[in-house]
């Protein structure tokens, strides 16, 4: 895989999405159903990335105290829920993982 080709294609796709309706204005309207579906895309995609990162250890689902990433992830979720602050969540999650790794090992 050539990373430069992927980036070039990624740049074109990203620009195309942003340019699409500004360019097509008046010629095409997004259907209401699609507009509603678009709201669910970010949470769905990002959760689909996060869950395996937290639960999967060596290709297996692992729900145990030894799974420090799952615990740190839960702490990060709590921090995000209460603080509504992305940066604070990152700090909380990383500190939690660092502390748990020392405690559990």
């Amino acid at each position, binding site marked *: *895989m*050539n*990373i430069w*080709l*992927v*980036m*070039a*294609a*990624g*740049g074109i*796709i*990203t*620009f195309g*999405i*942003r*340019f*699409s*309706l*500004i*360019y*097509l*204005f*008046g010629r095409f309207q*997004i259907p209401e159903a699609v*507009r*509603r*579906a*678009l*709201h*669910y*895309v*970010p*949470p*769905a*995609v*990002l*959760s*689909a*990335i*996060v*869950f*395996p*990162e*937290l639960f*999967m250890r060596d290709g297996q689902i692992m729900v145990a105290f030894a799974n420090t*990433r799952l615990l740190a*992830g839960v702490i*990060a*979720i709590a921090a*995000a829920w209460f*603080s509504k*602050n*992305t*940066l604070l*969540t*990152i700090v909380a*999650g*990383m500190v939690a*993982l*660092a502390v748990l790794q020392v405690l559990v090992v």
Partner: protein
Amino acid sequence: MHEAKNQFWAGVRAELPLLVGVFPFGMIYGALALDAGLSRAAAQMMSSIVFAGSAQFVTAQLVRDAAPALVILLTLAVVNLRHMLYSASLAPYLKNLSLRWKVLLSYLLTDEAYAPAALEYERNGFKPGSHWFLLGAGVALWTTWQFSTALGIFLGAAIPAAWPLDFALPITFIGMVVPSIASLPVVASALSAGVVALLAYGLPFKLGLIVAAVVGVAVGVTLETLKKGSR
């Protein structure tokens, strides 16, 4: 021309509070992209070629996982689809601009540039010269993003390899998603996508990600429809 200048700087000023949050993200992206195996040049250039925060984080993650190019591009497209909403929302304001302006402003149309511009146009209306506001916000963001990426790449090389830096990616996504969860359909959408991602983890080419996203969106839309119907 005077009005254009005023609008441009008003856009820059409106962008400033957002930049406080953007700067550390750019640094984290730079450090993570390097850690995920991208070269310094590729990590830096992605910030100007793609210029989309969360899509760049996702791409770095998938490069680390050695996902095929097609899956990376499909995921990137899905992650960026929300920008179509921004495009739709600003289109009426920008309809009389030249093609050159439309291209430039579309390239800069990120979450953080859209938000202050859309608020400004809704509040004060769109007058001749108002497009300079979006340009000011976009240019301020773009410059900050390039600079913070460079700093992250520079400092990232100094971070010990033993540090679990890769964990910052999922944590960043948690920090983006959780505060945006405002309704039951969104919770259900996120949870179902996560569970399907675990169940479909074994699928080849990381296709589980796409399947999970589609299921999550379907669950969200279905619940929203049911909720409306029951009222």
